[in-house]
């Protein structure tokens, strides 16, 4: 019997305990914070993130502040702020507001200044009138835009990190579930790790275009 087969046989002979769903106590021992499990699962399977929707018959006047992705297909007048999330203006959406978001996709109409930390995507037949401040911008052919475009590099878009005093290494490791809020990574540092390249993407040119 070859060495290879023997190893296989050994693996087969010595049965390992059947992997079942770990008990909560086991999770705590392994140091896996339970609250992050659903999030990781959804990211790995590319399931759509939670998105709030304002339907096309909805009219909002005032301030919108969202902690999740938002789609506006109705009318909004005021301000819209989604700190770390994506805002989509649907084809029927009409927004007269200043907008702050991580990412903005426009299929409808916006009148107002827009500021994003990541990207603005102005789709075909969308209309945006206002000044833009963003790290990246994509403008499809057929979109209408009027205003200033100010590209802010990803490192410059975020406020300069204030040097934090480094915590002294502790002799005993604490499990994340038992960790104090002060030891958890801040939202800003987490988003900084996912910052993408700041160069604007190039779109395909028109088919009937001439070059000279």
């Amino acid at each position, binding site marked *: 019997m070859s060495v290879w087969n023997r190893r296989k046989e050994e693996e087969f002979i010595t049965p390992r305990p059947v992997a079942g769903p770990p008990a909560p106590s086991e999770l705590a021992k392994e140091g896996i914070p339970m609250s992050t499990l659903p999030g990781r699962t959804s990211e790995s399977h590319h399931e759509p993130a939670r998105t709030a929707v304002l339907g096309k018959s909805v009219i909002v006047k005032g301030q919108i502040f969202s902690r999740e992705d938002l789609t506006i297909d109705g009318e909004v007048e005021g301000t819209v702020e989604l700190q770390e999330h994506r805002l989509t203006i649907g084809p029927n959406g009409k927004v007269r507001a200043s907008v702050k978001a991580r990412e903005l996709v426009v299929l409808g109409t916006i009148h107002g200044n827009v500021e994003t930390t990541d990207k603005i995507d*102005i789709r075909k037949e969308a209309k945006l009138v206002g000044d833009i401040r963003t790290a990246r*911008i*994509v*403008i*499809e*052919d057929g*979109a*209408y*835009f*009027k*205003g*200033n*475009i*100010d*590209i802010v590099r990803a490192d410059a878009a975020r406020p300069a990190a204030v040097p934090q005093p480094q915590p002294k290494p502790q002799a005993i490791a604490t499990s994340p579930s038992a960790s104090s809020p002060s030891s958890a990574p801040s939202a800003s540092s987490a988003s900084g790790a996912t910052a993408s390249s700041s*160069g*604007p*993407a*190039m*779109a395909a*040119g*028109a088919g*009937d*275009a*001439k*070059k*000279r």
Partner: protein
Amino acid sequence: MAILDLAGANQSTVSFITNYGHRLYSDDFLVQLDHCFGEGDFYENQTNPRAIETFLKNTLDFPDEAFDGALVWDVLEYLSPALLAIVVAKLRAMLRPGSSLLAVFHNEERAETVPSYSFRIHGHRTIEMASRGRRQPAQFFNNRSLERLFQDFQSVKFFLTRDHLREVIVRR
């Protein structure tokens, strides 16, 4: 630097300008022209003082010396003489001294309509011209009339190019 582009926002020009770290102000001058003067006689409407006022407020409402360069492309061809003089004076005021303005004029003096383009900068040597149909120009320009048009500027340079176009670079 702050650059004014009147060809309408497009990805190529936005990328080209902003990759240098410049700020770009973009507007589609022809869309604004059609919006303000499009109903009825296009050139007759351009003599209406109220329509002119609305147009200037919508399109060129900037403080003096706000820009370091202007990409005007072919839009000046579609302005009646009275509005053209106002627009050129306004453009001059909006530009800082020493900055440049790029305009394009068609060469075909006998054509009733000329092709209109959306100009897109693809690089230092390439400008893409996407067709936007044909339009009737208000008037035709030769070198002498162009010199007169930009007489308040510091200098005017002409470059004959392909597609019956004359590029004009004007220095404020």
